[in-house]
C-alpha cells in the first residue's frame, strides 16, 4: 500500500493565467518517403500562423522559448533532433529543450510550455511535436518501441511492446468486462465511432466506414485486441503557442485559457503496488468499498486495470479549474485511444464514469457527436477527429494534435479546418460525399488526455473560453 503526503497532493498553482493563442498541424500519414521531418514541422507552425492571420515570421517574433516533443531519437538515427528542427524553424538563439515521455510526449511538451509562461520566464512559448516512425523496417521498429519497456526485465521477452501492454487489457477484459460478448461489442463500437469520425478529417490517415462485425472479425493482435482495436502508427507534426494574457491578445482577439496536470506511474507495470483509490471531485469516500464484490478480482488498485497516472493528472487538473463532473462541466474531449479497451479504462480514471462502469459512457451514446439512441447531441463527445485509432498517433505530436482539435471546437472553427475542398485536395485525399460537420455547437470547455504506453506518464489539459470559466480567480 502506498500513500501520498498532503504536500504531494497540493493542487498546482500557476502564478499567472496562461492562454492558448493558436495551434497548427501538418498532414498525418503512415509514411512520408519524400518529405523531411523539418518540412512537416514547418507545415504545422505555418498553419498556426495562418490560423491567426499572421506570417510565420510575425508569429515567431512573439516566441521566447521553444519546447519540442519527439519521443524516439533512435527511429530517426538523429540525436538532438530538436536542435535540428529549432534551427530549421529559424528560432535560434532562443532557449530550447526536448521533451520525451513516450506516448504522452505531446502533452508533456505543452506542460513545459505552460509552466514557462505561468512562471513569468517567457511571455510566449512554442510547444511543437513530431514523430518519424517510418524510417526503419517494422520488426526493427517493434524492437525500438520495446526498448521503452524495462530493458532487462521486459524487452528481451519478445522485443514486442504489445506483450507488456496487452496484459492490462486482458485483466480489464476478464475482470471488468467479464469476457462478455456484449463488452466485446462495446469495445468494437469505439473503433467504429473513431474511424468513422476520421472520415470527416482531411488530416487523418485511418478513416474507415466499418461495422462492429468488421472489428470483431479483424485479425487477432493479442487476444482480446484485434487489428481494428489498435491505434495507427503515424508520421506528422502539431504545435500550440501559449502566452500570458497581454501577449495572447496581441496575437489574437480570441485566445483560450489553458491548464494542465501531470501524473506518472511505474514504467514496469509489474511494479505497481496496491493502494487506496484516490478520489476525484465527483466521487465520495466509500464509493468503491464494494468494487471487489461487484467485479471479483478488482480489489487490487490500480492493479493492471487502471491507470493511476491518468487519475492523478485529472485530480490536479480538475481541482485547478473547478471541474467537478466532466460530463456536466465539459463539452468535448480527446482521449488517448491507443486501444479500444484502454479508452474505456481512461473513462474511469478521469471520472467520466465511476470505476467498473466505463462501458456505460459508450453504451449511453453520450460519447458520440449525435447520441445514436436519443438522436440529440451527445453529452460529452469524444475523439471527433478520429483519435489515435482513426486520425493518427505520431507520438510526439499526438497530444498537441488533441489540444488543437479541442481548441477548434471551442473557437467554433472546426469546419474551417476540416471542411475546405482545397485542403482535401492538397493532402491528396478524397472528401467523402456524406461529409458532415462535427463541430460541437456552443462548446466552451474541453479536455485532452495525453498518455504514455503502460501509463508511465499522463497529462490532462483543460481548455476553456475565458468567458466561461468555472472557478472564480
Amino acid at each position: 500500500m502506498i500513500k501520498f503526503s498532503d504536500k504531494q497532493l497540493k493542487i498546482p498553482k500557476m502564478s499567472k493565467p496562461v492562454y492558448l493563442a493558436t495551434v497548427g498541424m501538418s498532414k498525418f500519414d503512415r509514411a512520408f518517403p519524400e518529405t523531411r521531418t523539418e518540412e512537416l514541422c514547418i507545415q504545422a507552425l505555418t498553419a498556426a500562423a495562418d490560423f491567426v492571420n499572421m506570417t510565420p515570421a510575425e508569429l515567431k517574433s512573439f516566441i521566447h522559448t521553444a519546447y519540442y516533443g519527439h519521443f524516439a531519437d533512435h527511429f530517426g538515427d538523429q540525436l538532438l533532433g530538436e536542435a535540428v528542427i529549432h534551427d530549421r524553424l529559424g528560432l535560434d538563439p532562443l532557449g530550447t529543450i526536448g521533451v520525451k515521455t513516450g506516448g504522452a510526449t505531446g502533452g508533456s511538451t505543452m506542460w513545459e510550455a505552460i509552466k514557462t509562461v505561468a512562471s513569468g520566464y517567457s511571455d510566449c512559448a512554442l510547444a511543437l511535436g513530431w514523430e518519424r516512425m517510418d524510417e526503419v523496417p517494422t520488426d526493427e521498429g517493434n524492437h525500438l518501441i520495446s526498448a521503452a519497456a524495462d530493458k532487462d526485465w521486459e524487452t528481451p521477452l519478445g522485443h514486442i511492446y504489445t506483450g507488456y501492454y496487452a496484459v492490462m487489457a486482458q485483466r480489464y477484459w476478464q475482470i471488468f468486462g467479464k469476457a462478455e460478448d456484449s463488452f466485446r461489442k462495446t469495445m468494437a463500437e469505439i473503433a467504429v465511432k473513431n474511424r468513422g469520425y476520421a472520415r470527416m478529417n482531411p488530416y487523418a490517415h485511418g478513416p474507415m466506414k466499418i461495422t462492429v462485425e468488421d472489428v470483431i472479425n479483424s485479425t487477432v493482435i493479442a487476444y482480446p485486441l484485434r487489428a481494428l482495436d489498435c491505434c495507427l502508427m503515424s508520421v506528422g507534426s502539431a504545435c500550440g503557442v501559449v502566452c500570458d494574457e497581454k501577449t495572447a491578445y496581441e496575437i489574437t482577439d480570441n485566445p483560450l485559457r489553458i491548464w494542465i496536470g501531470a501524473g506518472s506511474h511505474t514504467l514496469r507495470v509489474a511494479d505497481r503496488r496496491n493502494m487506496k483509490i484516490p478520489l476525484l471531485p465527483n466521487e465520495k469516500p466509500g464509493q468503491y468499498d464494494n468494487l471487489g464484490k461487484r467485479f471479483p478480482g478488482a480489489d487490487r488498485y490500480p492493479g493492471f486495470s487502471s491507470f493511476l497516472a491518468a487519475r492523478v493528472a485529472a485530480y490536479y487538473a480538475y481541482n485547478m479549474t473547478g471541474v467537478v463532473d466532466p460530463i456536466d462541466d465539459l463539452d468535448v474531449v480527446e482521449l488517448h485511444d491507443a486501444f479500444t479497451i484502454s479508452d474505456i479504462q481512461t473513462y474511469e480514471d478521469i471520472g467520466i464514469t465511476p470505476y467498473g462502469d466505463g462501458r456505460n459512457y459508450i453504451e449511453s451514446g453520450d460519447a458520440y457527436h449525435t447520441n445514436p439512441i436519443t438522436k440529440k447531441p451527445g453529452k460529452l463527445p469524444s475523439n471527433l477527429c478520429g483519435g489515435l485509432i482513426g486520425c493518427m498517433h505520431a507520438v510526439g505530436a499526438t497530444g498537441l494534435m488533441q489540444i488543437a482539435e479541442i481548441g477548434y471546437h471551442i473557437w467554433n472553427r472546426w469546419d474551417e479546418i476540416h471542411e475546405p475542398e482545397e485542403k482535401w485536395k492538397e493532402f491528396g485525399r478524397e472528401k467523402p460525399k456524406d461529409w458532415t460537420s462535427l463541430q460541437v455547437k456552443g462548446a466552451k470547455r474541453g479536455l485532452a488526455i495525453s498518455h504514455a504506453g503502460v501509463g508511465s506518464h499522463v497529462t490532462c489539459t483543460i481548455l476553456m473560453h475565458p468567458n466561461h470559466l468555472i472557478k472564480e480567480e
Partner: protein
Amino acid sequence: MPKTEEEKGFVSIINGRYKPKGKFHIIEANQPIFNEDTGKLAGVTNPRDMTYIHSYGGEAVFFESLSKGKLMATRCDNDKCKFKGSIYLPFRIYCPDCLQKMTAIDFTEKAKKSAKIYSFIITHRSGAFNTLKLPIKFINIEFDDVVTILMSYLSVGDPEIEKRVVPIFKTKNPTYSIMDLSFVPEGTSESELPEGFTF
C-alpha cells in the same frame, strides 16, 4: 549472415574497466533509395550493426542466480521505513520508499508454493532480435507476500488467470538474462520442460 565464433564480440572487466574483444560491428555501405515511379532519388539507407554493453549492477546476483536454479527477491529491512518487510519481485536494489539498500532473499521455495497467474497475453508477433518461440505466452505472476507482480512467459500449456504455476530455470547454457526464467503449470513433469530448463 551470422557472425562466426571468431567474429563475435565479447566483453570482460579487467582492472575495473570494460575490455571488448572481437568484432562489434560489420561495416556495410549505404544504399540509395529511388522512387520507382519517378526515377528520382528520395534518400539513402544507413545500415547499423551495433552491440550495446550494459551493467546489471546490483541486480547481477538476480540474473546469476537464475542460472543456478534460484529466484531471488529483495526485502526492505530498514527499521525506520514505514514499509519495512515489503518484498519485491522484480528484484529492486533499493527500497522505493526509504531508498536504503534492501536484503536479497532466496524466494524459490515460496515462489514454487504460491505463484499464480494475474494476467496474460498470447502474441504471434515479435520484434527484431526476438529469440523466444512464437506464439509467446506472456504471463504476469502474483506471489504470496510480494507487493509487486512479475512478468515472465509460460513454456508449457495455456495461460489462465488464477492458474497455479511454478518457476523453471535455464541452468544448462544459460543466457544470463530474464529469459533464463520461465514458468510452467503446477504438476508439469521434468520431461515436458524446454531444452536446458530444470525446476
